[in-house]
């Protein structure tokens, strides 16, 4: 056992005192002199061209400081953590229910609501796509570019086709997981202003302030060091505050009004706009010897990744690598295809596709244990990763592989308390 002087101790968290006193400042708790409230006008259709957008009535409402659409954006109008495919304000077409079309800043919250109600839009609706089956058809309308395939991955290790002959038992199942929401208790919020050095500053509920800084700078067409993003105390994230939230819209309104602007999403807007967990369908074929040693794993997975890429590329990269579970297996193959649709955007959510992969590999492992009449802990111990294991990407594990210990210690604890 290592002998540390500070590590391992349950020190009081650095932010615990202010949080129990209620003095910790979350983004919505900031207020400033001369501050405006901001809000976003969003689409109520999933897939459409905007034929007409009338902002004049909203602009004419006394107390409204500014109403902006995409034409006001001085720099770039595409953002996204990996692929820049989402507009700050829609300029070509609406791709999902809830796409941002215009932003409003006004003297009070109430006036923001009234101004938003005065914005008029006419759509030319397009066929919406809500299933991967439709998305993959030739004649399906294209959400982005000329293909609805958002990403494809193929993992191949050993020789799966040749391996089936060596199996005493083969288990085949189709698994599906559903779309989920983070439901952090704090809805997204932020405030922007020019600080006393002239930096366009955004204080926001975020998991990713440096990324936010880059996006704000690109949108405004200014150097990144002229933007300051500060994370406010953040009321949970779980991946849902990795994509940019209110930051761009706040910054754009401050850029034009030169005044502090605060945007606080209500629960509905927060859930509607933030990314969701990828629903994934996985067809799995697993082969093993009669004493329970894995021989081959072959999985096909598809997912509806929604209207924008968000963290989809991270999920599709991670799920295949993890698909065989924490088990040694000499032959692994996984093919994954994610599609763009007009569904709610799927993205980062605690686990990035590994929870879905675990539903598959553990479902298969439990099925295998039952079929072979083996104890679920025993079959896992038999296959468990250890130092020296070669994983399905060919990487050899050289240290810190405590899987077998977790199995043994969990089983021991369960025997004690259950």
């Amino acid at each position, binding site marked *: 056992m290592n002998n540390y002087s500070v590590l391992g101790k349950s020190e009081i*968290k650095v932010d615990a005192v202010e949080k*129990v*006193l*209620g003095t910790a400042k979350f983004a919505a*708790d900031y207020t400033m002199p001369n501050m405006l409230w901001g809000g976003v006008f969003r689409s109520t259709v999933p897939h459409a061209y905007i034929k007409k957008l009338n902002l004049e009535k909203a602009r004419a409402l006394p107390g409204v400081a500014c109403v902006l659409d995409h034409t006001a954006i001085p720099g770039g109008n595409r953002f996204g953590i990996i692929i820049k495919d989402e507009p700050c304000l829609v300029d070509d077409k609406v791709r999902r229910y809830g796409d941002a079309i215009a932003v409003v800043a006004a003297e009070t919250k109430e006036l923001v609501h009234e101004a938003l109600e005065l914005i008029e839009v006419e759509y030319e609706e397009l066929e919406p796509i809500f299933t991967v089956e439709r998305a993959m058809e030739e004649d399906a309308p294209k959400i982005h570019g000329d293909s609805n395939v958002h990403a494809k991955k193929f993992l191949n290790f050993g020789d799966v086709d040749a391996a089936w002959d060596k199996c005493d038992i083969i288990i085949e199942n189709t698994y599906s997981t559903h779309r989920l929401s983070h439901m*952090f*208790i704090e809805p997204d919020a932020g405030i922007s202003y020019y600080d006393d050095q002239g930096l366009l500053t955004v204080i926001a509920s975020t998991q990713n302030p440096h990324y936010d800084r880059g996006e704000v700078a690109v949108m405004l067409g200014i150097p990144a060091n002229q933007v300051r993003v500060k994370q406010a*105390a953040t*009321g*949970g994230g779980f991946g849902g505050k990795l994509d940019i939230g209110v930051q761009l819209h706040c910054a754009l309104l401050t850029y034009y009004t030169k005044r502090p602007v605060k945007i606080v999403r209500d629960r509905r807007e927060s859930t509607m706009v933030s990314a969701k967990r990828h629903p994934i369908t996985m067809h799995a074929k697993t082969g093993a010897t009669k004493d329970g040693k894995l021989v081959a794993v072959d999985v096909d997975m598809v997912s509806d990744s929604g209207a924008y890429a968000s963290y989809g590329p991270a999920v599709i990269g991670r799920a295949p690598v993890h698909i065989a579970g924490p088990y040694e297996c000499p032959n692994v193959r996984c093919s994954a295809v994610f599609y763009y649709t007009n569904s709610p955007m799927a993205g980062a959510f605690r686990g990035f596709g590994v929870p879905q992969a675990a539903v598959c590999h553990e479902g298969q492992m439990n099925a295998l244990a039952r079929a072979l009449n083996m104890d679920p802990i025993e079959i896992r111990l038999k296959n468990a990763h250890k130092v020296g294991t070669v994983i399905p990407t060919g990487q050899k594990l050289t240290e810190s592989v405590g899987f077998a210990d977790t199995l043994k210690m969990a089983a021991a604890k369960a025997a004690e308390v259950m």
Partner: protein
Amino acid sequence: MNKIKITCTVNGEAVCREVYPNQRLLDFLREELGLTSVKEGCGEGECGACTVIFNGEPVTSCCMLAGQAEGADIVTLEGLSKNGEMDKIQKAFIEVGAVQCGFCTPGMVLTAKALLDKNPHPTMDEIKLAMSGNLCRCTGYAKIHQAVAKAAAE
């Protein structure tokens, strides 16, 4: 729209304000009085983040209008520590590690405070029942229950 006058006690101090009536108690506390420990998580009385102690009882301030505060005695988290000394519940939350993101914490602490004021030595089942109107997404509640039990034992 006519303004209304609200006279009430907040955290032990008399408060008198003339305000427009179209705001919730939550908005009145946060925006008129600057008591931003009162959090809005859902706006529909489901999450409990906006809980305040209203005449001795925990209530969700998003379900009340500002005008309903007239004559009431209201306690928010700001009113819990006295002369810089934290309440034992606050200390227990820190010591047990019951705070993660901290957004549900004000409502949790106040709900626990209302419980212990009435029932200083609750059973674990009573603690769980009393805290069952406050959602938390971070902690799995285990350490929150432990913290309330610890505070009660002191």
